[in-house]
């Protein structure tokens, strides 16, 4: 077992142990905190497919996160009010349906955004993904049907067959299982032929083209897959808070997702997990000390970018074999 595998497993075990410890100490709030870590880790793992493997610095992943959230919110509202949704189809309170719908819609949007933005690269790509996410953000704010700026409440947490999702622990385990599934996907992708081509496209696109592989379609598939995983996290996030608002679509959210990956380690399997745990911990500890915690978060982030490249996983497990 390599050192990176050991470190990754340690982080996953720590995340799993946290809510059980909280339950033993009768502190249910910490279960929610651990759930938040797992969901943000899932969202960032999605982004890590595009950003870490493909080198596609998407500054608009909040769009997919928010689309997942709104998919959950809108379906639940229609089910709650017993109103048909589209073409007479009913709403639903089944999480699995929401994940599928959220991922499908996000996948289509990612396809559209990717078709335009992947024609460019570098700074253009960053700004264009940001701009499209802003477009969806402003649309959500000014479209009055689903709460507009005020957001949308989910009155009862949605259901999962055979599980009482109202129990914090059960909901955590659902999120954790999905996180494991996403990590398995990330791992399989990374070590597949597809992943090799995707990473080669990041390292040396000219050489990739010279062996006869066009990077565009590979990147597009990675971008779409990345958006779909993040959308599932968004649906869970909506269920955790029982609330969806345009702030899930805001560019601060996109920035936060990138920050999670940088804190943990770009392109590393457990980078998103370590980053999300560290970030939520910062938020909780600094937020408890001062209401101006974002100032200190900014300073820490600046220090990490300038002096501690490679993130937490890089610090604990060393540099990756292929840069």
């Amino acid at each position, binding site marked *: 077992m390599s050192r990176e595998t050991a470190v990754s497993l340690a982080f996953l075990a720590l995340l799993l142990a946290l809510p059980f410890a909280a339950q033993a100490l009768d502190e249910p709030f910490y279960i929610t905190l651990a759930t938040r870590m797992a969901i943000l880790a899932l969202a960032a793992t999605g982004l890590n497919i595009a*950003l870490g493997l493909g080198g596609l*610095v998407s*500054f608009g992943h909040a769009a997919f996160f928010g689309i997942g959230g709104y998919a959950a919110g809108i379906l639940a509202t229609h089910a709650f009010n017993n109103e048909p949704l589209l073409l007479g189809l009913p709403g639903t309170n089944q999480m699995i349906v929401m994940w599928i719908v959220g991922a499908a819609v996000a996948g289509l949007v990612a396809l559209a955004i990717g078709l*335009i*933005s992947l*024609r*460019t690269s*570098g*700074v*253009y790509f*960053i*700004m*264009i993904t*940001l*701009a*499209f996410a*802003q*477009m969806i953000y*402003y*649309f959500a*704010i*000014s*479209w*009055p*049907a689903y709460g507009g700026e005020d957001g949308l409440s989910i009155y009862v947490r949605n259901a999962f067959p055979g599980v009482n999702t109202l129990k914090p622990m059960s909901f955590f385990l659902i999120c954790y299982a999905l996180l494991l599934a996403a990590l398995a996907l990330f791992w399989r992708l990374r070590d597949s032929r597809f992943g090799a081509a995707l990473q080669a496209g990041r390292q040396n696109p000219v050489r990739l083209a010279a062996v006869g592989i066009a990077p565009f379609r590979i990147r597009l598939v990675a971008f779409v897959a990345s958006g779909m995983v993040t959308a599932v996290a968004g649906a869970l996030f909506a269920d955790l808070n029982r609330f969806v608002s345009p702030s899930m679509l805001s*560019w601060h959210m996109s*920035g936060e997702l*990138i*920050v999670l990956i*940088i804190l943990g380690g*770009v392109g590393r399997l457990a980078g998103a997990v370590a980053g999300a745990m560290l970030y939520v911990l910062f938020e909780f500890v600094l937020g408890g000390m001062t209401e*101006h*915690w*974002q*100032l200190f*978060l*900014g*300073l820490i*982030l*600046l220090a990490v*970018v*300038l002096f501690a*490249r490679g993130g937490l996983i890089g610090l604990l497990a060393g540099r990756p074999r292929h840069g």
Partner: protein
Amino acid sequence: MSLALFIEQLLNGLQFGVMLFLMAAGLTLIFGVMGLINLAHGSLFMVGAFACASVAAATGSFWLGLAASLAAAAAAGAVIEILVIRRLYDRDHLDQVLATFALILIFSEGTRWVFGSFPLYLDIPALLSGAVHLPGGAQYPVYRLAVIGVGILVAVGLYLLIGRTRLGMRIRAGESDREMIGALGVDIRTLYTLVFALGAALAGLAGAMVGALQSVQVGMGEPVLILAFVVIVIGGIGSIKGALVGSILVGVTDTLGRFLLPAAFGLVMEPSAAAGVGAALASMLIYVVMALILAVRPQGLFSAHA
């Protein structure tokens, strides 16, 4: 819909575009010369607005406030360039995005710490407080016309600075070959600090002028920053001319879209539904324009790095 209302909205669009140009010109200059994507540009806009509002409140003079906004934004720009930005020129864009994102958090939270969460207000100076008559019978505020005038002056000034002066020559040389200009004995570090401070001062000026039209508050720079990104993506990164054309295009399209689309939908729908659909689509309009332009010209209209 009367002609007067249309002209008024057109002028509003122009004024908005000019304000975007002040932001976009700095961003595109910084990217063109140093290859740096600066998210903290919106924070410099905010610094300008806060400096203007607090100095104007203390001295009672808008003009002193305006001077303070230029000085404060340029100084803030120079300080962050020397402390942080300078270390990022050789890094990839991801690091630049993150470090400047961190700067936004620091600036926003720092400003909230000093000034609190309540917005400040800035009065329009007495000299510019009147209104002029437009053809068609409407009135238009002199202050907004003055903003348009300042924007045109800045555009001309930048054109002369970059095209006709020694400093401009060095900036252009820095854009095309930074090693060579260093080898010719130009102090490139100071040049970069200067360019960054110039861009910052323009952002601060925009912030101060906008501060008199809306409230001065934390986070006011972020929507403008993102629109400035749209502008330079449309215009072509690194091109001042592209920034000017893109700004006017975005400013006018956005303003007229918000004004015309609800009215247009009103022809085929009932008024309340038309207002909702129109507003929602109008808020997306400039991004659609951006997507269309990129579909035809992925490098923007006037790319300096095509």
